[in-house]
């Protein structure tokens, strides 16, 4: 699996991320990789208030990533047919849109 373009994930505009999946299904690979990227030490240090909550179920349900932003907006991603890089790019584009000042400050 090729790594996504940006190595670090900035979670400044995110309040809570809930990753829900059933590990015995075969379509959870991308969701698990997304969890690994988002829950990494680097990502968590960008925002200590953000909670990353993995939920492990066993009811053949679809893998779902539920992201709640600081301003109340919710992003729901159904990871059954998505790759982890697609999910990450969608998530990061919204993060950047929410918090452009921080991003621009970093780039400068």
């Amino acid at each position, binding site marked *: 699996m090729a790594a996504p373009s940006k190595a670090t994930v900035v979670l400044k505009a995110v309040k809570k991320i809930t990753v829900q999946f059933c*590990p*015995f*299904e*075969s379509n*959870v*690979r991308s969701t*698990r*990789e997304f*969890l*690994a*990227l*988002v*829950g*990494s*030490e*680097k*990502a*968590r240090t960008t925002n200590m208030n953000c909670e*990353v909550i*993995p939920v*492990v*179920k*066993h009811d053949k349900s679809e893998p779902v990533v539920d992201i709640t932003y600081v301003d109340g907006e919710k992003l729901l991603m159904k990871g059954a047919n998505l790759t982890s890089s697609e999910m990450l790019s969608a998530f990061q584009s919204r993060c950047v849109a929410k918090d452009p000042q921080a991003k621009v400050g970093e780039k400068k």
Partner: protein
Amino acid sequence: MAATLCSKLLPKQGWLPLTQSVRHGSKAVTRHRKPLHIQKQKLLAVTQYIPPAREFPPGAYPSQTKHVQEDNDLTLLMKRELKKLFEDCKMIAVVQNSSSSAEDMMTLRHRLYKHNITVKFFPNKVVRSFLSDSIYCNMGPLFVGPTVMFVSKEPKVKEMLTTLRGSPQMTLLGACVDNTLLSAQGIVSYSKLPSMTVIQGEVVSGLSMLTSHTAYLLQRHPAHLSQLLQQYIKQQSSDGSAEAAPKAEEAT
């Protein structure tokens, strides 16, 4: 080239040609793409590679012959170790760690070592190929992404759960306890089970309850009768003693 020209055009010493063409000849190794000689160009055009025409793109259908890769020695060693592990240990739990720093890992390992639980890392491919051969093939889909194995000889599920609650980034995926595959909720309910002696006591008491009830029913009638007779004897003896007492008073 200049030397050969000179040797042909200068038969007499000191005779310069009438026209001197300044050739801009580049060397063999240039920074730009040197234009190919026309003969070389023609040769390349004639001998160009034309790939065979495919009816379908290469990834469309699965390959007919599965290319079985031979295991190299390290893989064999790891497989042997895995086999020994599965035979020895009663409890094997699979946990995904989205991240842990080295210190977190050290503290976790230390806490688990107190309960005789060891932490093992194996490459996913090796584990998957080993599991598909053995009877634990249904554990295969668990080993995707960054996974760690917790193994222990005794199924100490409760302690493991309490230790894992301390580290938030570890996600418990499943476990194989006593050759039974358990999911996350299964592990939690397994930890809530009482110990073996308690369960045995409960079973024995439940079975013996029926027999004791039967025995009680059988003995109910004679017991009732004996109770009534005892009551009668008491009454008689109290009447007799009441009669004897006034008679004794009369006598004296």
